[in-house]
């Protein structure tokens, strides 16, 4: 129980990643696959943020002179996740535009039917 409690953030974020990957692998609707991609990305971001956590730490912002550098969380994963979120938005928008085009061309978002139409 204590192991579960100590690692609850890891378990939650890895769980989110696995849910996302399952959707990507098993679902056949393209919109659902893109939603799964977004889940997977969110899980990875949460995992990176929780790796950077320092026990009892606060946000790494010196908002007033009393704030001390000790007991701040690691800012590096946060900066990297900021990058990852932006790239994720770009990938998501591009994927959605491809889905729009696919729907216009085939009249369906079902990936099985799209595959049948391929040579």
């Amino acid at each position, binding site marked *: 129980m204590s192991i579960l409690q*100590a*690692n609850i*953030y*890891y378990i939650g974020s*890895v769980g989110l*990643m*696995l849910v996302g*990957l*399952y959707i990507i*692998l*098993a679902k056949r609707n393209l919109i659902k696959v893109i939603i799964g991609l977004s889940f997977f990305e969110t899980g990875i971001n949460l995992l990176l943020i*929780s*790796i*950077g*956590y*320092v*026990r*009892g*730490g606060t*946000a*790494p*912002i*010196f*908002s*007033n*002179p009393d704030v001390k*550098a000790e007991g*701040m*969380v*690691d*800012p*590096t994963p*946060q*900066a990297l996740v*900021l*990058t990852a*979120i*932006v*790239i994720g*938005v*770009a*990938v998501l*928008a*591009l994927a*959605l*535009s*491809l889905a*729009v*085009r696919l729907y*216009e061309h085939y009249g369906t978002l079902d990936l099985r039917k799209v595959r049948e139409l391929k040579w």
Partner: protein
Amino acid sequence: MRGLIAVIVLAVLAAGLAFCLAEIPFGRDIGDVGGRYVEQGVQETGAANVVTSVVVGYRGFDTLGEVTVLFIAAMGLGAVLYGRRPSGGRREKPSLILSTGCRFLFPLIMVFGAYVFIHGHLTPGGGFQGGVIAASAFLLMYLGCGGKRIHRATLGAVESLAGLAFVIAGLAGLAVGGYFLMNVLPKGTVNQLFSAGIIPVIYIAIGLKVGSELAGIVENLLEVTE
């Protein structure tokens, strides 16, 4: 069959991650790099927000690449959706609440977005977050204020000039004989609005660029281009 393969792949991934994460206890001590950023970041960059000093100060070049990735994705989206036929679907008229709320909230959301990216070096937030907030105002405008459109040429000009401002701010470091993206402006007092040298300048440029790019993405996804 498909589901079974998926479950096997998930089990392998979960086992691998579990073994890796067992080596990293949750809530560990801060590492060398992070510790240095937290202890020296304020003196070295003048930004009260250490995450901002990492994103724009220490890793400014990386952020330029990130902005480029976003630009290329927006360009790719425009290219994929260019010349789309009108779908013929009728768009439902916004309700009274949405159209009134749009007119009331649009300027407030824009001001909040500008606040978030101008204060990126002092408070949580920054160029990317503020830009996304400003773009969400444009999404609300498309949903609620029926008939209002973004002026495409203005959008393109804001995006290009903001990108140019980032590169010029970087080249200024080379011009004074330093390195690319050197903090050439005076750092000022920590926790003042005018502090941290070129960091707020770059973050304002990023905010405008991200905001106009995402507004363009929203426009491309919603509109049928002629």
